[in-house]
């Protein structure tokens, strides 16, 4: 009846997961009561959960990412604490069985459920606005994508309450992840969660490639798209090509585990090397899926806060596409130590370094964007400069790792761990925090507190360097990764410093929450009336903050590379707005519970597969399919926003812009 699921799955004998589970359940219960007391459920259901509005979906993605960041960080600091204690004779407070789950969960959660939803959240929120359109190409599918991603996150976190998570590392290399060596449900949780969220990610890629290629405002030719849209396009193209490889590799591993196939087993003609290749054919491009949109965010920030167009726009676009293509040709650098031979290692090493060329060009282009500018030191600029200083060092160590003879002595070491945290925190996380500050007023109509924002930046910047720079040295001395116990007592001071660094990052995360709460409390003093709080250059700043559901009353006509800046300057010069257009009723997609119900059944099915409860898996599959059919037969797809409403909103917007223009032209 319940497959492998018994009461023994609840970790009664392990205080850490047990207490964490109870606390999490209490927090979720408390939140539910609070929402019910305030009667917020209808609002949440109509405005977020079932919304097809790309902006709302973007916000949900980012909320998911921030919540998962707390989980992933908790894993991270537990690892740091263990490594700072478990030295020499001490075994620390975590057994290998527990520690191995923690680092696997840390990697899986940080990549799939923090970085990915954060980046996809920004693409959702920003891309349609920057392209000057009303929504993504497939709004309902967008909602489904989000909920499938959330379903994956749910299953990964459920492993804390029921059973265990994988103890294999975040890429679950076979044969360690085969049932022979990992008979428990941990790897099944990993596989099923990633398969479900992977479907969501591929659908996202389909959606955004279509949106960017097919739905842009009139006059928005390819070479007039903001750089963030270019990087989003490149990132989604990579997703579209790379995620199916992950799906296939994980499916093969599932066939091995569930049906006794022999793709990667030691016996029956299996070959684990195949998995290593497949997983990195996805895994390396994955890095660029994350970092390219981050580069896009820095490009927007650099131009806006320097008060200048981005230097070398075409170069930037070319560099982005070059990285997009070369990112597929470097995967073998993850296993130079497999003994493939000098020729193969050298070719892949050089190919990896070649990515450094367009990346270096980008750094110089941001540098020359600031040159001749009037740089305003708002929070996003702190992150931009912090990134430029941190990322070049991460690039240096990356090129070192791409030299096979160097990799032979630092592969899999803490040097590598320091390198990828340097590029992911210094590159991706800094960009996400910059973007969070930059677009927050657009999403909610008020700015975040600057002082607390700068405190958060310093926590991340100082905390990161303390937490990871010592690892470079340890790695050079031969410290390898994923060690539950540290053999060499002389490393203790370095590991202690790293724990302090992690605690400072933790303080930064706490301050992020404080900043949010404080900014909400004082929102009336920090309203963004104009819709253009940063003197922006791209179309998202043309509309109100927060924008109406339909974004623009009339799709903007784009002239020139910086659509909104050109329009703004013309209006300032001529001291008038463009003539009032002819408003028309707007058709917008209606809300749909399809996504949340499909994801519910997907979660049920996934849970059942993990625990071998086959009848329930069939119920889940039928449920998901039934809701899909129900959706396909639906008659009503859109609702009409009456022209009166559109006109009234637009006139209000024009009045505000007129006042704004006056204040700008008087101040200059």
């Amino acid at each position, binding site marked *: 009846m319940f497959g492998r699921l018994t009461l023994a799955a609840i970790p009664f004998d392990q205080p850490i997961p047990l207490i964490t589970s109870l606390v999490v359940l209490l927090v979720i219960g408390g939140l539910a009561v609070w929402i019910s007391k305030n009667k917020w459920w209808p609002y949440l259901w109509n405005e977020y959960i079932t919304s097809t509005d790309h902006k709302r979906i973007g916000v949900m993605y980012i909320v998911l990412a921030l919540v998962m960041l707390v989980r992933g960080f908790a894993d991270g600091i537990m690892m740091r604490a263990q490594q700072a204690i478990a030295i020499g004779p001490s075994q620390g407070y975590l057994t*290998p069985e527990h520690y191995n789950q923690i680092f696997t969960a840390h990697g899986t959660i940080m990549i799939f459920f923090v970085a990915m939803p954060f980046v996809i959240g920004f693409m959702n929120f920003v891309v349609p606005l920057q392209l000057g359109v009303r929504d993504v190409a497939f709004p309902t599918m967008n909602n489904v994508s989000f909920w499938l991603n959330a379903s994956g996150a749910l299953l990964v976190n459920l492993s804390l309450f029921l059973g265990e998570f994988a103890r294999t590392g975040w890429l679950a290399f076979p*044969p360690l992840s085969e049932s022979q060596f990992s008979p428990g449900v941990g790897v099944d949780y990993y596989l099923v969660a990633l398969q479900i969220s992977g479907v969501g990610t591929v659908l996202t890629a389909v959606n955004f490639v279509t949106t960017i290629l097919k739905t842009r405002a009139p006059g928005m030719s390819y070479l007039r798209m903001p750089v963030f849209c270019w990087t989003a396009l490149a990132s989604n193209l990579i997703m579209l090509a790379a995620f199916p490889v992950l799906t296939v590799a994980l499916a093969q591993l599932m066939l091995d585990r569930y049906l006794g196939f022999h793709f990667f087993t030691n016996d029956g003609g299996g070959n684990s090397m195949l998995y290593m290749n497949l997983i990195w054919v996805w895994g390396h491009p994955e890095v660029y899926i994350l970092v390219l949109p981050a580069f896009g965010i820095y490009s927007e920030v650099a131009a806006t806060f320097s008060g200048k167009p981005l230097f*070398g726009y075409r170069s930037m676009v070319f560099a982005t596409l070059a990285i997009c293509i070369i990112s597929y040709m470097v995967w073998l650098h993850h296993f130079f130590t497999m003994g493939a031979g000098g020729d193969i290692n050298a070719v892949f090493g050089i190919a990896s*370094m070649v990515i*450094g060329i367009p990346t270096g060009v980008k750094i110089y282009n941001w540098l020359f964007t*600031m040159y001749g500018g009037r740089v305003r030191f708002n929070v996003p600029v702190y992150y931009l400069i912090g990134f*430029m200083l941190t990322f070049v060092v991460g690039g240096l160590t990356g090129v070192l790792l791409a*030299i096979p003879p160097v990799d032979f002595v630092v592969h899999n070491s803490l040097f590598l761990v320091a390198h990828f945290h340097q590029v992911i925190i210094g590159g991706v996380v800094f960009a996400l925090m910059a973007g969070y500050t930059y677009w927050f007023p657009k999403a909610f109509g008020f700015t975040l507190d600057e002082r607390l924002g700068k405190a958060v930046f310093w926590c991340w910047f100082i905390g990161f360097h303390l937490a990871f720079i010592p690892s470079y040295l340890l790695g*050079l001395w031969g410290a390898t990764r994923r060690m539950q116990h540290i053999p060499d007592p002389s490393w203790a001071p370095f590991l202690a410093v790293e724990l302090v660094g992690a605690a400072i990052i933790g303080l930064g995360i706490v301050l992020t929450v404080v900043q949010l709460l404080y900014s909400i409390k004082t929102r009336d003093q920090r309203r963004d009336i104009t819709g253009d709080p940063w003197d922006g250059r791209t179309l998202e700043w043309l509309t109100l903050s927060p924008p109406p559901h339909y974004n623009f009353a009339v799709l903007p006509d784009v002239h020139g590379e910086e659509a909104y800046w050109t329009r703004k300057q013309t209006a300032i010069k001529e001291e008038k707005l463009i003539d009032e257009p002819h408003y028309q009723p707007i058709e917008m997609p209606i809300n749909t519970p399809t996504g949340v119900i499909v994801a519910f059944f997907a979660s049920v099915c996934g849970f059942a597969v993990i625990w071998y409860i086959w009848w329930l898996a069939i119920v889940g599959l039928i449920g998901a399919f039934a809701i899909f059919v129900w959706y396909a037969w639906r008659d009503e797809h859109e609702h009409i926003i009456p022209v009166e409403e559109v006109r009234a909103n637009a006139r209000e917007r024009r009045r505000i812009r007129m006042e704004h223009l006056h204040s700008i032209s008087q101040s200059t």
Partner: protein
Amino acid sequence: MGAAEKTILINSTAIMLAIIIPTMIATVAFAWWFRRGNSKATYLPDWEYSGAIEMVVWAIPALTIMLLGGITWIGSHELEPSHALKSARPPLKVEVVSLDWKWLFIYPDQGIATVNQLVVPAGTPVSFRLTSATVWNAFFVPQMGTMIYTMPRMTTRLNLQANRQGTFEGLSSHFSGDGFPGMQFKVQSLPPDQFATWAQGARGQGLALDGRGYSELSKPSSYVKPMTYGAVAPGLFDAIVANRAPPSPVPAPQHNEPAPPAGV
């Protein structure tokens, strides 16, 4: 870390620092000089392109990567782990098997084997053949240089040399499961004559690594104390690679000098 690897590491770092440090200084300097409050700085609100600068910013990373690419090509070939080292002395052959969670070192020419203890003659090349009996690991002795994967059903090759005498730490540098942190081993680099004496003395002493001994050894265990086998069933390494049952308890017939039975 080997001397050659160290040279490449230092040279490449120096080449890149020559580019990166000025870039970092320029980042801070540009941002500060062109801050909004600085009335002395020139504001160029429309400046967005300069062919000359574009050429330079593409050329700098491109030239750097060409230089480093050359270092990579040469280094990858010269330091390829499977290439035999140049030496007047014939290499010592060692077969390495990673088990859950310990290291088995077989000396085919000496007819002995050790666990979690690798003894080598100093100044003599060692030619390793490596595999894994269970999951992936990586054989790594930081003070000797290059690491290499040990993979089930596959053989990798590695050539190293301990240039000085002493005791070094060895480890697995690829995560392999719950006993992974207990996969440390010692490397003893002895003067060649002492090595010969050691090998001679070990032979025929203690346990024999036959089928029964091997199946005993291959049971999962961690933090295993170093031990020595005085005899090894021939063909054991190849049997492990082929995933065949280890040779039968009685050593294979073609071996004309039977090892003593287990436990003697």
